[in-house]
């Protein structure tokens, strides 16, 4: 495997923060600076999902490593790019955060703690109170379909260990569109342990959710995810999932 110079080349406990970003020039600098102020040693990788604004330039100027996608791949496609980069550079842990400033960098350590202590392979920073009642109903519906016991299945604030990185970097995970149920189902099928850590989240200051941007997008998302859940019925359901530590 060819190597790219990265902070991950330096040690066993290395980790990077991956931020998928599309047209986030207004917030990306604040997010990167917020991370750097608390975790100056962390490598921040911004995956620019074919933005039409200056997201890539702003992120680079703020000190992030920028991976620019030539095609718009969506949120998961961008995150997977960061995960593949992490695998290539030998990183042991990947933390994913949104580019809109909702996630607090101060909780990165809390997020990776269960991985460092060997309690989990994947950690989700959960904040179920942040969403509307309608979205909570949607989560309940997906929990019912999949048997997942997790509270916040759409949170983009996550940490993956090396075992999860290897699985999620594979071609098997390349046709997923969102970093939620599809990713969790693959991880469950492979027998990885996922836990949730309660974290506070801020309010989105700009832009809109990619999933909940319009009723049409929501309907499409619900239909696609339902089909994905139904297609996976019984797949790895016996594997144990933990919640809320």
């Amino acid at each position, binding site marked *: *495997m*060819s*190597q*790219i*110079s990265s902070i991950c080349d330096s040690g066993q406990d290395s980790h990077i923060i991956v931020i998928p970003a599309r047209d986030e020039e207004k917030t990306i600098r604040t997010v990167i600076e917020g991370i750097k102020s608390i975790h100056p040693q962390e490598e921040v990788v911004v*995956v620019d999902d074919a933005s039409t604004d200056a997201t890539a330039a702003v992120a680079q100027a703020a000190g992030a*490593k*920028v*991976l*620019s*996608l*030539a*095609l718009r*791949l969506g949120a998961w*496609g961008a995150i*997977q*790019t960061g995960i*593949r*980069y992490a695998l*290539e550079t030998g990183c042991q842990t990947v933390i994913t955060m949104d580019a809109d400033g909702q996630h607090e960098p101060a909780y990165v350590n809390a997020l990776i703690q269960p991985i460092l202590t060997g309690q989990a392979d994947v950690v989700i920073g959960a904040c179920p109170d942040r969403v509307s009642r309608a979205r909570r109903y949607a989560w309940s519906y997906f929990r019912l379909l999949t048997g997942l016991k997790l509270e916040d299945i759409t949170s983009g604030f996550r940490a993956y260990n090396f075992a999860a990185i290897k699985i999620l970097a594979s*071609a098997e995970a*390349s*046709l997923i569109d969102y970093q939620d149920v599809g990713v969790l189902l693959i991880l469950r099928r492979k027998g990885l342990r996922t836990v949730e850590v309660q974290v506070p989240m801020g309010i989105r200051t700009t832009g809109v959710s990619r999933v909940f941007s319009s009723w049409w997008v929501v309907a499409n998302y619900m239909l696609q995810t339902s089909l994905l859940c139904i297609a996976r019925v019984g797949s790895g359901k016996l594997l144990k999932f933990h919640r809320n530590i």
Partner: protein
Amino acid sequence: MVTYQLTSTLIGLGIAISILLLVRRDHMRGTYAVWWLCAATIALLLGIFPKVFDKWAASLGVGYPPVLALVLGLGLILIKMLTMDLERSHQERKIRRLAQRLAILEARPQMSDADAAGVDNDTEAL
């Protein structure tokens, strides 16, 4: 008077010739060309011998033979559409991984000879 057999033969011949011309002009990849050449042969044979359907329909208990032809034709079209979507999904996966790979390669500050050699090997990892 134009007979039913002549009409079906002409239709079968037209379809077969069109497909053969497209294959001959390299407008289609090998795998697809094989499918369509088979389709052309079947269209031609059934065009020349339309009575075959009468026999098949009788043996399968279908009262009106043209219905059998339509159902079989629709079934084959559905199979073809299914394989097309499978192929499209396969290509979509490859395109996504290619775009990701490109983004990672572009992020390299400088590519050494060793890295350049690695790129060739990386194509397997797409």
